[in-house]
């Protein structure tokens, strides 16, 4: 009995610490949202960012001829070997600016959102076990493998698979915008995100999760049948 009580205390400790971490990350994300909203409202028609450049077929002359394909867009570049910082100034409000800002906000904070999502579902799993144990006399392990918890683990697995895909969409969108507004003679401009830097290994982790979930589901079915055998 005391063993179960100490286990329950441990679980409660885990839940409380997960609560604290989740709230802290959520507050941090909210703060960052507020900061970026203020930033967008202050200068709504400029984009500051970083891109990578690499020479096209013709040799490049840095600081040479810079031009933009769109009227009313000013570009300024600070060459730093292969990375360039740029500032686009739009003459009027442009939906692309807002889109770009939101895109970069999500791209930069994706890991944080991802961690929050996973911790939130872990917390829910621990919480469900605590809730069930309070009402019954079975062991703690009996309640971890419930259908609801399987669903939660599946959400986590989907998050693992979705994470690199979201990064990939950011990569595509960033390249699209750069190609639309940048035109440098002799230089190819690309996003600082590269295909290789995406977290492809997360997909494998997610798929491994799904395999484990299938095993667990079979186990749950067997346990249910065993429980209902008189």
């Amino acid at each position, binding site marked *: 009995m005391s063993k179960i009580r100490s286990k329950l205390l441990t679980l409660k400790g885990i839940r409380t610490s997960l609560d604290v971490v989740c709230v802290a990350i959520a507050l941090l994300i909210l703060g960052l949202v507020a900061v970026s909203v203020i930033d967008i409202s202050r200068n709504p028609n400029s984009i500051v960012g970083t891109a990578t450049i690499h020479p096209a077929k013709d040799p490049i002359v840095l600081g040479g001829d810079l031009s933009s394909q769109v009227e009313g867009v000013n570009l300024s570049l600070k060459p730093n070997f292969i990375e360039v910082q740029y500032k686009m100034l739009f003459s009027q409000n442009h939906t692309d600016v807002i889109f770009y800002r939101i895109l970069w906000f999500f791209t930069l904070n994706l890991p944080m959102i991802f961690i929050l999502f996973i911790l939130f579902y872990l917390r829910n799993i621990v919480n469900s076990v605590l809730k069930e144990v309070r009402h019954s006399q079975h062991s703690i392990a009996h309640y971890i493998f419930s259908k609801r918890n399987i669903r939660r683990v599946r959400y986590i697995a989907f998050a693992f698979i979705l994470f690199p895909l979201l990064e990939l969409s950011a990569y595509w969108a960033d390249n699209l915008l750069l190609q639309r507004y940048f035109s440098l003679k002799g230089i190819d401009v690309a996003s600082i995100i590269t295909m290789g830097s995406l977290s492809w290994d997360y997909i494998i982790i997610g798929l491994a999760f799904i395999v484990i979930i299938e095993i667990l589901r079979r186990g749950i079915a067997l346990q*249910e*049948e065993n429980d*209902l*055998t*008189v």
Partner: protein
Amino acid sequence: MGEIIVNVDVMMAKRKISLNALASKVDITPANLSILKTGKAKAIRFSTLAAICDALNCQPGDILEYRDELNNK
């Protein structure tokens, strides 16, 4: 396919025996006997069936019944 109906409650009423008394006689928990009585059970061990038949002094056919899907009888 039809289904198996458990008529333990009918037999218990005939023998005038309570759920707890039968559970202690058969040596299973009242919770498990309740699972059987309410029809939630997915399987029953032969040993449990034999013990219930022994306690209620009846045949398995008195406790279990097959009901057809079509005419429900």
